[in-house]
């Protein structure tokens, strides 16, 4: 373990002292997240405020001239809308074009008559989309909201006049929701929040893994290229040291720094997304937590353990690949490009796993898919959910096998002269003149 210790200490010292790494690991993520946060929070806040703001300007075209239209006017004013009257649809369109009105309401003739004789009536709604932006969509939805509030108010007025109880009218049938998560019963009013919680749990893992492996791939690829760039590789290879320990130490150092990076990035992103949801809507976090703990109780500790082991395998696999490729490049920059080449396709594989529904496949297909690198790790939770433990075993085992193959192969290459004579990007060999 002597080689391992010496190399590890050297790696950590060099990485911590290298300003490039500090910048890449801490300052850049902080700045990026900060900017994203400021922009998104500012924007979402504005959308939320806009949506909360009651009222606005509406154009009203009255073709009915009946007694109920006045009630409509009063109700709209009570709800904070300002009204401009127009005598025709054409005039309404002119006004919409020249003002910042939210939209136009057209009350057709016969409206009052219908309501008085207890027949359903309708109002035509014209909304304006002035630009393709979330803000503009929020404004259109406010017009519809104006009408639905109006409709509720009118119902109340009509029904109370005819002596029906208020509560009954407001909600004749109330839905009490419960989710059957496999065989666990989860009572909730907010189905969307629970499903959102589940999907987030399933998606967040691949995302964090990709960030982590991207980091470590960069670091480990760089750490081999640094030996070449600092012109130490030849010296290193002539020293009495164990080459397997050399590789292991480099992987460990990259993993340590990489995990620190993920803590920084991961922490920032979790904080970032959680603050987005609290601004955007009033998601009930306890429901999400309930969803997650229900999920955990279904998939059970075996799946979680399996996932953990498979993740280790996946990280080692990416690391091994990164080091293997970086052996054949000449400098740090090409090493980073090369590690990008491997991380992106692998990231795509992980994301494919999000769209695969294991429940719709038969058993042999599931086993087969469980042996595809990267996808296998992404599918462990879905497999655990449907209780397909043999596929989980295949997924965990295959992720470890791939890692083993890559690391073994890398070790083989490092102990031959190929490190020295092979180039990934061939340069024409020229006589060196001094």
């Amino acid at each position, binding site marked *: 373990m002597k*080689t391992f210790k010496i190399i590890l200490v*050297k790696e950590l010292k*060099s990485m911590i*002292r290298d300003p490039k790494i500090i910048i890449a690991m801490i300052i850049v993520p902080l700045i990026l997240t900060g900017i994203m946060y400021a922009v998104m929070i500012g924007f979402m806040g504005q959308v939320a405020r806009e949506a909360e703001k009651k009222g606005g300007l509406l154009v009203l075209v009255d073709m009915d001239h009946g007694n109920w239209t006045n009630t409509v006017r009063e109700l709209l004013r009570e709800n904070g809308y300002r009204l401009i009257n127009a005598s025709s649809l054409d005039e309404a369109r002119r006004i919409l074009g020249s003002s910042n009105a939210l939209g136009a309401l057209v009350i057709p003739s016969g409206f009052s008559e219908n309501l008085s004789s207890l027949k359903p009536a309708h109002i035509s709604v014209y909304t304006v989309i002035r630009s393709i932006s979330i803000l503009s969509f929020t404004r259109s939805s406010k017009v519809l909201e104006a009408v639905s509030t109006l409709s509720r108010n009118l119902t109340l007025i009509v029904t109370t006049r005819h002596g029906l109880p208020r509560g009954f009218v407001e909600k004749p049938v109330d839905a009490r929701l419960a989710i059957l998560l496999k065989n666990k019963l989860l009572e909730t009013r907010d189905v969307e929040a629970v499903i959102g919680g589940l999907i987030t749990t399933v998606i967040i893992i691949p995302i964090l893994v990709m960030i982590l492996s991207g980091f470590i791939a960069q670091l480990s690829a760089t750490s081999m290229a640094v030996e070449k760039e600092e*012109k*130490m590789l*030849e010296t290193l290879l*002539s020293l009495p040291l164990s080459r397997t320990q050399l590789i292991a130490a480099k992987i460990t150092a990259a993993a340590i720094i990489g995990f620190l990076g993920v803590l920084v990035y991961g922490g920032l992103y979790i904080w970032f997304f959680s603050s987005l949801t609290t601004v955007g809507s009033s998601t009930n976090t306890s429901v999400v937590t309930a969803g997650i703990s229900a999920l955990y109780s279904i998939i059970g500790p075996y799946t979680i353990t399996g996932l953990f082991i498979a993740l280790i395998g996946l990280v080692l696999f990416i690391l091994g690949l990164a080091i293997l490729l970086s052996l054949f490049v000449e400098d740090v920059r090409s090493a980073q490009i090369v590690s990008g080449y491997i991380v992106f396709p692998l990231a795509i594989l992980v994301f494919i796993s999000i769209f695969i529904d294991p429940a719709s496949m038969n058993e042999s297909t599931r086993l087969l898919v469980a042996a595809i690198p990267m996808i296998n790790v992404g599918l462990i939770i879905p497999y655990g959910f449907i209780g397909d433990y043999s596929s989980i075993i295949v997924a965990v085992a295959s992720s470890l096998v791939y890692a083993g193959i890559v690391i073994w192969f890398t070790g083989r290459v490092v102990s031959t002269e190929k490190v020295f004579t092979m180039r990934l990007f061939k340069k024409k060999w020229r006589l060196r*003149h*001094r």
Partner: protein
Amino acid sequence: MLSTDYPVIVKDLEKVYPGNVHALKGISFSVRRGEIYGLIGPNGAGKTTTLRIIATILEPTRGDALVESYSVVEEPDRVRRVISYLPEDAGAYKYLTGLEFLYFIAGFYTDDQDRMDEMVREAARISGLGDRLRDKIKTYSKGMLRRLLIAKTLMVNPRVAILDEPTSGLDVINATKVRRIIKKYAEEKGVTVLLSSHNMLEVEYLCDRVGIIHEGRIIAEGPPRKLVEEYNAENLEEVFTKLVGEELV
């Protein structure tokens, strides 16, 4: 030829690089214990290739080299324990200090802290870098870096020191310093030194014997003075031009 008298024995070394570059075409020579042996020759002659094979960086296509009777083909791990190698184009970790770098290297040769301290003290003496050893290597000049690297190579007191162009890229003063260091160290410790150079003056000053290497073959061998006499020349440089000139014409 006894390997107790000859720590380095090179036998019919051939090297073909990928792309069918025939860099070595059968090189044989032996280095006596305690002597400084120089490989000299023009650019591309095959000096670095030869030294890399002896230092176990490259594998020979044919032939073998024995270092302290260990074969570089069969037992490279054992060879690495008795040599210390300074590559032609070596660097050092720029974010470490000189001292940290020296301890880093020493750690591979011994577990004993006292022995390590001793090596590093020795390196400080050899390099003459003094307090600058406490600074990061990225602040060193080329000459300082080369002296640090010479020191790291010699401080471990190897059985065989392999130095590829030890004075390359140095000015006259630094080159002279480095030559003195090597000569003095080899005399004091009786270390066997195998070096390469294309500076004939350097070789005449330093080496007990030289091998002139040209296009992958050794075309002459012997003590510098004897070669000069043999070829009826003023100095090694003339010997060299005579030899190569004859071949080229």
